[in-house]
Every structure is written in structure tokens, then in C-alpha cells.
């Protein structure tokens, strides 16, 4: 899709050509099943272990603490359901933030229906969890705490290390959905004090359909998938060799480029936000002004609706997303924005922009040229905007 200006990197990213190259041999040339005993299989197994080592190295973990899955959703489901089950003797209380991705919210809600008690941690107007709330919420029967590292909609980054210390003191297992943060921010699982961590390949220029769960050595989450002996008997299923190899390489590249990419994206992002504020009245930032992912920009536009803005931007060759009901697929606006105290009618007028490696200054300029007339046109049409 030439000439299309993609600004939705939080949704997914294109596979890096280098990554694709490293994946190719594992489809046809070396297609072996890593569980088999002849040389083809052994080669595939080695490739998987090499990738595992890369992921472990990036996270500051041991290779045997990294388990490959089909993606962030599986990793999150495994962490939540697996710990709830393995820790059932201790209790059934779970602590979870209100701004988690659906891949954490839904398994938690599922457990709630089955009788687990949930304490929902609220967030402030910037989307931050207060570590003190965690301390207050912990009980003797708490089996799991789950707080995401960086939010996918507004980009706010949580004080994970601080929360980790509290979790450790309270002896509660701490899971973090780091899907949006891995590959973008430096992460060390020991420093953070997390017991489980989810990541997903297609968020950092790797392939879709593959992710991983970090699970600290002493922790045992009941498997989701029973079957063969893969992943140390914790996650059955023939390894997605090309996907895993791709994930490992993508993470390696992302780590090399992390500082440079972050600086570049943040600069472009800040120029974009300054430009929007200068050209369009009555726009407001959603998310923390500074403690946020480098490429993330979520803002609301008074008087108009998100999907209409997306369509108009699409007609101008720009791709972004929104927190409006029409785009969430439900009849409610984004639960993240609502949790941050943003009124529903304003939440419907939000746009989420997430910059990435492909973003250039020209893209920013194009957006700044295209967006003001769009906002003006939709505001003319609006029955409630009259400034």
C-alpha cells in the first residue's frame, strides 16, 4: 500500500524485511518438526532455542523461563487462568487494573463469573495506577496481581518496579501485560520484580501469531494447552518455528534500535501534537503528558466523532484508530478513556495515533495539513459544536 501513511503501529507493525529473511528457510528448506530426532528436526529445535536465548537475554531472564505461545492473547490467558488454577489452594482473589487490554480483562471477568473475587484498581486522569492502591488491595487470599506495563490506547507507562516491590513484600504473584512495551522500552524482569510477563511478536516488527510468556523459574501456571511435551511440557503444540525465529530476530533488532527509534518517534510525536494544538482549537490529550510510550498520541476533539474522523483521514491516505463506540464494536466508548474519567461523549471523539519506524517528517506535515479541514468540516456538521 504505497503512499498510505500508517499511524497505527500500536495495532500492528509490518514485518521487518530482515526478519522475513531469517524466517524463510524454516518454511521449506528446513521445515522439520523440532520434536523429531533426525538432523532436520534437531536444526529446527536449535533455531527455537536460539530464539529463546535472544528473548531471555533481552528481558534479563533465563532461557528456561521463556515459553513461546501464539501471541499476547494466549500469554495473557495462560498467566491469568493458569495462576488462578495453580494457586487455588491459597485463594481466589485477583487484583487487576481497569485499563487492561481485553486479553486480560476477559479472562479475569471469566474467572469472576466462576466465583473469583476481583479488586479492580482504578487509574487517575492520566491513566496511572497508584502503587498504594495495590498495597491496600492485597489480602491473604490474593493469588494474582495483573497490571499492564504500557497501555495500548493512551500509551501511559505504569510504575511497574514500584508495584513489583509491593507485590514481593506481600508475596503475591505479579503479571504484567508488556505487549506494548517490549521492543520499545528497556525491560529487566528482575528489576521490575514481575513473575510473569506477556509479549507479542507483531508489535515489534515480527510476525503475527507468535508471542511469549516469561514465567519466573519457581512459578507454575497450570498449562492452557495439554498435549505433547513441547515448551518443557507447559505449552503443547508443535513449535511455530518460522514465527519463533522471526520473533527472536525482531526482538534482537528492536533492542539494537531501541534508543534511536524511541528518540526519533518521540520527537516526531511531539511535533505532531504541538502542530495539532496550534491548528485545531478545543483538542485535549488523553494520557500522561510525559510518562508515555514514545510514539503514542491519543487526543480528543470536541464536538465530533471518532469513526467519522478515521474515514476522512483514510480518504486522505492516513490510517489511525479511535476510542469511539463505533470503532470498539460495542455500544460503549473505550473502557480505558472512561476509566480515566473522560466523559463518554468526549471519549467518542478521540483519535489514537501511534508512530513507528516508517513515520517521517513528511507524514507529520501531511497530517497537519489534512486534519484541520477535516475537523472543521465535521464541526460544521455537528449539532453541538458551535464556537
Amino acid at each position, binding site marked *: 500500500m504505497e503512499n498510505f501513511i500508517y499511524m497505527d503501529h500500536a495495532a500492528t507493525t509490518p514485518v521487518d524485511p530482515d526478519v522475513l529473511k531469517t524466517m524463510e528457510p524454516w518454511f521449506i528448506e528446513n521445515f522439520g518438526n523440532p520434536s523429531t530426532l533426525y538432523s532436520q528436526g534437531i536444526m529446527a529445535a536449535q533455531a527455537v532455542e536460539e530464539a529463546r536465548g535472544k528473548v531471555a537475554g533481552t528481558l534479563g531472564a533465563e532461557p528456561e523461563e521463556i515459553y513461546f505461545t501464539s501471541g499476547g492473547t494466549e500469554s495473557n490467558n495462560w498467566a491469568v487462568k493458569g495462576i488462578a488454577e495453580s494457586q487455588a489452594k491459597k485463594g481466589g482473589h485477583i487484583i487487576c487494573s481497569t485499563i487492561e487490554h481485553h486479553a486480560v480483562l476477559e479472562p479475569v471477568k471469566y474467572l469472576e463469573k466462576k466465583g473469583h473475587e476481583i479488586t479492580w484498581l482504578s487509574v487517575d486522569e492520566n491513566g496511572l495506577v497508584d502503587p498504594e492502591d495495590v498495597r491496600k488491595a492485597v489480602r491473604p487470599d490474593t493469588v494474582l496481581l495483573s497490571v499492564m506495563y504500557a497501555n495500548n490506547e493512551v500509551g501511559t507507562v505504569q510504575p511497574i518496579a514500584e508495584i513489583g516491590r509491593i507485590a514481593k513484600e506481600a508475596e503475591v504473584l505479579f503479571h504484567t501485560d508488556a505487549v506494548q512495551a517490549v521492543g520499545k522500552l528497556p525491560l529487566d524482569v528482575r528489576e521490575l520484580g514481575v513473575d510473569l510477563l506477556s509479549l507479542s511478536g507483531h508489535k515489534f516488527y515480527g510476525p503475527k501469531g507468535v508471542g511469549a510468556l516469561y514465567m519466573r523459574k519457581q512459578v507454575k501456571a497450570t498449562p492452557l494447552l495439554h498435549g505433547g511435551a513441547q515448551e518443557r511440557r507447559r505449552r503443547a503444540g508443535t513449535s511455530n518455528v518460522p514465527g519463533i525465529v522471526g520473533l527472536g530476530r525482531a526482538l534482537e533488532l528492536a533492542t539494537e534500535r531501541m534508543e534511536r527509534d524511541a528518540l526519533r518517534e518521540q520527537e516526531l510525536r511531539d511535533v505532531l501534537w504541538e502542530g495539532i494544538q496550534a491548528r485545531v482549537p478545543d483538542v485535549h490529550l488523553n494520557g500522561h503528558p510525559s510518562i508515555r510510550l514514545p510514539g503514542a498520541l491519543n487526543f480528543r476533539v470536541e*464536538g*465530533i*466523532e*471518532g*469513526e*467519522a474522523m478515521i*474515514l476522512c483521514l483514510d*480518504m486522505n491516505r492516513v490510517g489511525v484508530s479511535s476510542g*469511539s*463506540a*463505533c470503532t470498539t*464494536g460495542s*455500544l460503549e*466508548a473505550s473502557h480505558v478513556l472512561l476509566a480515566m474519567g473522560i*466523559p*463518554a*461523549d468526549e471519549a*467518542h471523539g478521540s483519535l489514537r495515533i501511534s508512530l513507528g519506524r516508517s513515520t517521517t517528517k513528511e507524514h507529520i506535515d501531511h497530517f497537519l495539513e489534512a486534519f484541520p479541514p477535516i475537523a472543521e468540516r465535521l464541526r*460544521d*456538521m*455537528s*449539532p*453541538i*459544536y458551535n464556537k
Partner: protein
Amino acid sequence: MYSEQVMEHFQNPRNMGTIEDADGVGEVGNPTCGDLMRITIKVKDDILEDVKFQTLGCGAAVATSSMVTEMAKGKKIAEATDISNKIVAEALGGLPANKMHCSNLAADGLHKALEDYLSRRKSGSERLPT
């Protein structure tokens, strides 16, 4: 996701605006739900001389507002009353299932404007000159 007709109406909406001294006003929807439509009408000799819309909402909301005003303009009151959400959606080549409620809004907005006109006329006719 959207048909060509929907996109056409979204890009080139008909009758966008507000009739200042309207004979009837119909407002439907709710910004809390992410959509609000205001339809204003001008009636002469029982015919909808002019119909305009202002809409806050998604592509389907804008397109259905535009389409309903296009269909209603120039019609007799009785004919306009027959314009249903189904007819609006069909005229647009259909809407995705989760967007059908937008077409409801447009037809409802028109009907509310018509009701408003009729109730004003009714109370107006009671004040006969002496």
C-alpha cells in the same frame, strides 16, 4: 465496510445545515452514545419545502442523515411519514449489521421533526382570530 453509496453521502452530504426559522425540529440520539442528529424542516402547503440535518456521529450516521433529508425534501407530509429506517438503509445499499441503529436514528429524527411541526400547527390552529 461501507457501500459506495454510504461513502458518497459521507463525502458529499446533502442538505447539511440548519433552517433558522424551522417549522419543525427533531433531535435524536445522545452524545453519550456517540451520536446526535438534529433535523429541521420547512413546510409549505403540506409539502416539505426544505429539510436540513446536523449530525454528530460515524460514517453511517452522516450518510443516513443525508439520505433521509434527500428522500424527504419535496415530499408531502404523509409521504415523508412513510420513510422508514429500512427504506433509508436500502437506499444506501445496505448497512453493516452493527450500524443499523444509525439508520433508525435518521428516520426517527425526521419523524420527530414532522411530529413537532404537526403539534405546533395543531396548537396554532386553536388560536383562531376573533
